[in-house]
């Protein structure tokens, strides 16, 4: 700490990044200041209680489902060895490549009278049976959980494959039953990772626009969007956004609180745990459970996409332009992910090395983009660029700026997790051996947190690939990405053209998923 005070580069760089990340917040604050008192009261009376309840209950429901799905699947894959374990790992990560609006679309069409699930349901319960309705909190929660549990899986899996076996052995020797070992040793040790995963899920839920608009469930995001586009009431939208930000910040501070008292430095006594071979009965149970999750979250949507794509292929409706959309998506995603990862570095590093109210405020401020709805971030970026950097307008930069602001928190979160594992002693050693702060960063810190940077890059890349609301408004003219095409075709109900775009989106994200899975398997399988 003392050593770092000498270089003022770090706080300065951090402040710059945070200023960038706070652009949409400044916009929101500015616009909501123009709301008069009666207008605030109008907002409160007309919708705030409903929105608060809807949003809050959705977050709680999704977090609970993801907790069960994510932790159970991670524990099975990390702690048992069984045939097809690598496939299971892939299956649990692949749902990340399917955007929520596609999943919502797939499920609504599957649950129609003529859909696969609908027909199955009617065959089971008779023709008169009412189909389950997805247009409510449970339908939305189902969709968001299936597309979000992978975050919990990933983070808990990483924590569960590493650990100190002595702790669990010691407990066992003292007569603890396996259940007690799990509850009192394993779970507390992986708790920070699980909480971090759940936080990412919760932030995704708060900012989700795809599933809630497809299923017409009134959350803050949807209501803000309608306020903005339906009524052209920017100030009202900003007011609602401000309440949402406050809600999310409370929640983030709570999460910090839960995590801050628990820091486990990885030391030489940490080992890759060897998983126990599963018995024949266990293999059935494991695959029954993982298979069900994989089928619902990935298998069914994939088959749905393939079958519509096949129709389109036969109708010769798939042209070369699809490769152009794919290229656009890949370009935006890689530029935005790379920028976000480098910009996130100072924030996480600063917070980790200098614990002060300032570094904590910086850290929270940098998560604004993830909390605000995409359309609001887009509008903030639009206003900022038009007023400050008008020459850049019209190019890709406006879009990249908005996307970086939007997904910076994801990069900060996963890098900060890696930085936490970096023991201060390693760094001090570097400094004692005469390395300057920059050299230390370059030769000691960066190589050590490379894994964290890569996974941050991958997570941001995948999210940008799927991003819709900001891209729809900020893409340069003539620059359609895959999500934009999915949206255009799906809104015309041209499923045979929406499906190939969704499939290409999945294929385009595969290399990123591969990097992630390889990182995990190199460590554990």
């Amino acid at each position, binding site marked *: 700490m003392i050593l770092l005070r000498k270089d003022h580069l770090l706080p300065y760089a951090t402040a710059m990044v945070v200023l960038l990340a706070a652009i949409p917040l400044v916009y929101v604050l500015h616009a909501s200041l123009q709301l008069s008192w009666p207008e605030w009261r109008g907002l409160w009376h007309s919708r705030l209680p409903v929105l608060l309840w809807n949003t809050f209950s959705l977050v709680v429901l999704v977090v609970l489902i993801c907790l069960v799905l994510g932790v159970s699947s991670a524990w099975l894959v990390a702690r048992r060895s069984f045939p097809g374990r690598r496939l299971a790992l892939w299956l649990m990560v692949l749902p990340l490549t399917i955007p929520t609006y596609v999943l919502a679309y797939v499920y609504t069409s599957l649950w129609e*009278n003529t859909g696969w699930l609908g027909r199955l349901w009617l065959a089971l319960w008779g023709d008169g049976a009412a189909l389950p309705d997805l247009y409510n909190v449970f339908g939305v929660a189902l969709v968001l959980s299936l597309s979000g549990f992978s975050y919990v899986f990933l983070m808990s899996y990483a924590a569960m494959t590493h650990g100190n076996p002595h702790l669990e052995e010691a407990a066992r020797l003292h007569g603890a039953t396996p259940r007690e070992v799990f509850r009192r040793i394993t779970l507390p040790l992986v708790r920070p990772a699980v909480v971090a995963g759940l936080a990412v899920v919760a932030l995704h839920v708060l900012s989700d626009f795809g599933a809630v608009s497809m299923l017409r469930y009134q959350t803050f995001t949807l209501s803000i969007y309608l306020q903005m*586009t339906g009524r052209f009431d920017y100030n009202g939208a900003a007011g609602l956004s401000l309440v949402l930000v406050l809600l999310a910040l409370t929640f983030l501070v709570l999460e910090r609180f839960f995590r801050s008292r628990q820091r486990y430095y990885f030391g030489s006594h940490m080992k890759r745990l060897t998983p126990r071979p599963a018995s024949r009965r266990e293999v059935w149970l494991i695959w029954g459970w993982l298979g069900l999750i994989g089928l619902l979250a990935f298998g069914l949507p994939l088959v749905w996409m393939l079958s519509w794509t096949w129709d389109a292929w036969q109708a010769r409706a798939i042209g070369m332009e699809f490769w152009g959309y794919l290229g656009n998506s890949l370009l935006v995603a890689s530029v935005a992910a790379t920028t976000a990862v480098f910009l996130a570095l100072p924030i996480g590093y600063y917070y980790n090395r200098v614990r002060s109210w300032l570094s904590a405020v910086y850290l929270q401020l940098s998560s604004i983009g993830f909390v605000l709805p995409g359309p609001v971030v887009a509008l903030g970026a639009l206003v900022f660029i038009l007023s400050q950097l008008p020459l850049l307008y*019209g190019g*890709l930069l406006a879009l990249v700026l908005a996307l970086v602001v939007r997904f910076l928190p994801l990069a900060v979160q996963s890098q900060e997790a890696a930085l936490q594992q970096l023991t201060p002693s390693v760094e001090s050693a570097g400094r004692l051996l005469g390395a300057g702060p920059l050299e230390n960063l370059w030769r000691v810190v960066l190589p050590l947190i490379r894994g964290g940077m890569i996974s941050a890059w991958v997570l941001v890349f995948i999210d940008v690939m799927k991003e819709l609301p900001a891209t729809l*408004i900020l893409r*340069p*003219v003539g620059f359609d990405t895959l999500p934009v095409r999915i949206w255009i075709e799906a809104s*015309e109900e041209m499923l045979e053209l929406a499906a190939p775009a969704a499939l290409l989106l999945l294929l385009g994200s595969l290399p990123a998923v591969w990097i992630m899975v390889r990182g995990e398997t190199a460590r554990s399988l």
Partner: protein
Amino acid sequence: MARIARRRGMLLLALVLALSMALPAWAEEEPLVIYSGRSDKFVKPVVKVFTDETGIQVVLYSAKSTALLNKLKVEGPRTEADLYISNDAGNLQLGSDMGLFAPLPEELVGVIDAKLRAPDNTWVGLSARARVLVVNTGQHRTDFVQSVFDLADSQLEGRLGITNSSNESFIAGTTVYMLEAGMERTRRWLEGMRDNVDGQVFNKHSKIVAAVAAGKKDIGLVNHYYIYRHLAKHPDAPIRILLPDQGPEGMGVAWNVAGVAVSKYSKQPERARRLVAFLVSERGQEIFARVNREYPTRKGVPTDPAIPPLDSYKVADVPMSELARQRRATIDLLESVGMP
């Protein structure tokens, strides 16, 4: 080695960034840019003919009508849009009220009925859609229905199909009824329908038609072309159109138009007006309306033979520009009733 590789990586990154910034400067012959809230496939055919005939390239920038209007407003003079197309007269008039559009010369748009364009010619309607009822022919429970207001009758409980109330056409239709029949009657109507559907509303008009054809619902409130789109695919479907509110006392069928406007900040207004001229020409009119079985707004242009002829029914006497003025009142009403 490693250092070189790193440097190369940085260089590549810088290159990509530089390229992305240079992107707007790429185009040499500036194409016309249309911000379009109308489906791609209903705009592309007419645009293609225009490009073939004039050599002027056109790029469609598709998104929701309202979102594009927001974008136009924020962009102001910096906008790249030359034209704006929306499926809803309310949006067009809103843009006009916000001062985003340039007036079109009377001699250009005079061929279109004055009620179907802006009073100051800042936008012009290109095709019209009628708000009608679709009825299942295999039942008699809906025989009493003469008016859209009959949809509030409790006899239709569980038998009525409507879209969710954030649907553009639903809002526009409700605005027309409010202007014709007053706020109170419209409120009671909405409340009746709300109770009849009991939260079960449809996402898409096409699904209402399919549900009525399948006998899951008896009657639905839709735009006319959805019925004929369904009949074109399933000629034997047991459905028919019912034109509501006819007769000497009836207010007539609610109309809405899709239309086009030229951005006030277009850098090539001359060429943009050429496109508008083509869109209101007899040829352009026929293509634009025909692809979606709508009514051309220009008199004398033939309509699709399947849909009810223009003069065969009464249309509600509401100028399209009114749809914008009352839009917020309509949304407030829908919200206070709690329409799903």
